[in-house]
C-alpha cells in the first residue's frame, strides 16, 4: 500500500466536544493502514494531553489512557506547540505522554511536509 504522511491537527479541548475523541479514532485507523502518522496539538488541543483526567463526574468515557497506547500502534510523532502550552500555564511534565515541544513556526514547517492534514 502507498504510504503517505498524515498529520492530525488537534485544536479543541477534550470532553466539551467529541472532536478530540473522534480524531483519536481516526489516528488509530490511519495507523492500522500503516500510514506515517503524526499529531500536532495547538491552542486548546494541548489540554487533550493533560494528566489526571477523571471523567466519572461528567459520565463521559475518558480517553487519557488511549494516548499511552499510541506507541503500540507505532504512533510516536506527537508535537505540541510551546506557545499554546505556556499561554495555558502548562509544561511538558503536565502531559500524560512524552511529546516533542516545538514552536508554532516549526509545527508550521512540519505541516508543509505532509501529504494530508486532518483538522479537528
Amino acid at each position, binding site marked *: 500500500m502507498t504510504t503517505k504522511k498524515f498529520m492530525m491537527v488537534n485544536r479543541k479541548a477534550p470532553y466539551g466536544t467529541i472532536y478530540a475523541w473522534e480524531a483519536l479514532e481516526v489516528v488509530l485507523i490511519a495507523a492500522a493502514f500503516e500510514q506515517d502518522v503524526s499529531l500536532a496539538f495547538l491552542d486548546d488541543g494541548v489540554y487533550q494531553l493533560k494528566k489526571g483526567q*477523571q471523567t466519572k463526574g461528567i459520565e*463521559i468515557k475518558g480517553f*487519557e489512557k488511549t494516548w499511552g497506547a499510541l506507541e503500540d500502534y507505532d504512533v510516536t510523532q506527537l508535537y505540541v506547540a510551546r506557545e499554546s502550552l505556556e499561554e495555558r500555564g502548562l509544561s511538558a511534565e503536565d502531559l500524560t505522554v512524552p511529546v516533542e515541544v516545538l514552536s508554532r513556526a516549526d509545527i508550521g514547517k512540519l505541516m508543509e511536509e505532509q501529504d494530508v492534514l486532518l483538522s479537528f
Partner: protein
Amino acid sequence: MLHIINKSPYDRCAVDSALATGAGVILLIEDGVYAAVKGGAEEKKIKGALGRFKFYALIADLEARGLGDRVIDGITPVDYAGFVDLVAENKTCQSWL
C-alpha cells in the same frame, strides 16, 4: 444575575463578554472551567474580576480535564446540586454560548 460560561477563555470571547456586563455571579462549566485554572495567561483577568463577580466552577468538569487541583484561590468549586442552587438563588441566568 447568574452568568453561565461553557467556553474556553483561550479560544472564545464569552468570558470577556460576561465580565463586560459589570458585576454578578459567574459559573464556569464544561470548557469554561479553563478560566478557573491557575498559571495561565487568563488568570490575571479573572483575579482582577473577583471583586465584582463571585466565581464558581463545576467540579465534575474540572476533574474531567485533570484540573481539580489547580483552581484559582477565590473561585468556589460546586457540584451539580450547587449549580441548581445558584440558578435558584439568582432571579435570571444568561448562558454565554
